[in-house]
């Protein structure tokens, strides 16, 4: 644009000498040159990174096929050695048990590991070709990888928030706390705010503003919860401490007439 303006200024003293269509032609020529150069640069870049894109898809396809093969072999092999039966015999009723059969889980896991490996190799091949092709340091790819990390953080944070919120809700309801839902929501938002702050930090968005906002929000939620719990559950804490002291006094002895639960002396659940 500066070149164009400079050209226009240089040609300004002669503007009365010639016809106006000469100036228009000059502008159009410069614009056309600029567009051609820009198109050339983009096309050159695309041609340069095309092998990288192809390498990405080829690596992904090859490792997916390898993953399918390994998965099928593992599935058949584990079925042949009766791995599921062995595990069912040995694990008893352990709390951690897979929803599907263990051999299917292993086969599926191996498949996805191969796919992930293909993705990593493909991305690194693409990265190499992009770095050599790009003449200017455009930080598109690193930002993309950060975005993937941020998405993982977001998913993990949401899952943890939901799990903790449910744990707190059920625990608080069974402890007969009237503000169980409030407590659960507080914990949920605490984790979600923390997750959001981590995601923004990971993406390098907001800088000091995000940090400040997170500090204020997190501190606010913690203070609110502390006030709510502190003021609302004094009785519960004192009861809990009293029962703890009583229990420690009779450590190791199984009572045959237990202390009453739920405020009723004659009800025995066991």
């Amino acid at each position, binding site marked *: 644009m500066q070149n164009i303006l400079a050209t226009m200024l240089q040609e300004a003293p002669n503007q009365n000498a010639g016809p106006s269509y000469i100036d228009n032609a000059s502008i159009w020529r410069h614009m056309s040159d600029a567009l051609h150069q820009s198109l050339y640069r983009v096309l050159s870049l695309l041609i340069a990174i095309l092998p990288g894109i192809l390498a990405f898809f080829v690596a992904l396809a090859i490792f997916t096929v390898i993953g399918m093969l390994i998965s099928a072999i593992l599935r058949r092999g584990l079925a042949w050695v009766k791995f599921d039966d062995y595990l*069912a*015999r*040995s*694990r*008893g*009723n*352990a*709390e951690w048990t897979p*929803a599907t059969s263990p051999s299917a889980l292993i086969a599926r896991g191996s498949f996805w590991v191969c796919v992930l490996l293909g993705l990593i190799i493909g991305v690194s091949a693409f990265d190499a070709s992009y770095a050599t092709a790009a003449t200017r340091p455009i930080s598109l790819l690193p930002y993309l990888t950060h975005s993937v990390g941020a998405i993982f953080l977001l998913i993990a944070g949401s899952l943890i928030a939901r*799990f903790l919120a*449910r*744990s707190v*809700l*059920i*625990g*608080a*309801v*069974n402890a*007969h706390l*009237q503000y*169980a*839902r409030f407590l*659960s929501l507080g914990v949920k938002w605490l984790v979600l705010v923390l997750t959001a702050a981590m995601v923004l930090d990971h993406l390098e968005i907001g800088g000091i503003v995000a940090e400040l906002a997170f500090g204020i929000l997190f501190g606010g939620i913690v203070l609110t919860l502390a006030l709510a719990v502190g003021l609302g559950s004094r009785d519960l804490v004192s009861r809990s401490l009293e*029962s703890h002291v009583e*229990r420690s006094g*009779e450590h*190791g*002895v*199984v*009572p*045959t*007439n*237990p*202390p009453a*639960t*739920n*405020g*009723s002396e*004659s*009800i*025995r*659940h*066991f």
Partner: protein
Amino acid sequence: MMATANSISDTQSHSARVATGLLVLLAPMAANELDSVLANLASSFATEGLVVGTPDAFSPESWPGVRFIPTRATNASWTLKAADFIHAYQLAGENEARAILMLGPGSSSLRSSALRDLGNAILSNSAELAVPCYDLPARAGLINSAILYPLTRALFASRVRFPLAVDLGLSLRMAERLALAAQRFAATNQSEALLWPINEAALAGFVTKELDVGPRATPQPAETDINAILASVTGSLFADIDAKAAFWQRPRFLPPPRGPVPFTPSADAAADIAPMLDAFRLAYTNLQEIWSLVLPPNSLLGLKRLYVTDGAEFRMQDGLWARIVFDFLLAYRLRTINRGHLLGALIPLYLAWVASHINITVSGTNPERHIEAVAAAFEADKPYLVSRWRWPDRFNP
């Protein structure tokens, strides 16, 4: 409790070992209780063939003829654990016993005839597993009445009233089977896991005999938190049912009842059910989201009706309770939500059942008759469980 030295067994000559002996394993107990149990045993069995294992230190000279062996010192527990069965089988093998009588804490409250019946049921080869039927107060053992007994009866076709009895008579075959099952837990560092002898006996096709033993002071968990214990016991039973699904899905005939339903007089004083109702109502307003993941709309509607019912009129239908337990069992199997959360969400519903049960018994109904009705509702609803177990995604109104 400290185990006695091995010198106890050394004082007994090897010739005292009788191949047809009964091995009695006692839980740790106070000296006076131990004397009482030993007196009952001495009056019930011939002392020549009797081997008594106890972790407590005492003078064996007071009981001539009885051979005492030291057992490992364990914490007194309110029920038998996997490690107890492994230990019992090992001791039976070492002492060439052919029948085992395991007596839990508080067994001094059992009559001598109860011990004799339990032991003789095994010694006479009439059963592989002898289980006591306790005569408990109307408001005792409520988790057993609400969940353990009805589920065991419906799925394993057994009328044993106390599937998690703390006293058991075992034949050597039964002890071996239980020890094998317990080994699986021990291999994964779960020696404190619960075993379900009735289910194991049903799976093995062994004969189980239930014997009326009268009243007993039942030991209670040292942990008074009902939430933890209920989740632990129910979770263990659910896991056992899950592991034995191939067995109980086949239709089985329930043996006829041993006699008329015993009359258990209701407690005189009306229990305070208000805290339980409050717990249920609080849960209803807070746990809807979680319950709706587990229960079908019909059950949720039933709970909604209960929510608006007054305390005196509070009655949970037997069919509704059976459906709730079955749906929680299905959710446990399908891992619809985290299992810890699932069992935690069951607790307020159980408290609602207890409140309803107390209301029913206060109105004059025989508590045992109500528990039998609940168990019958579980039996009637078993096809629902089997159907949804096989096809969980089928439409469920």
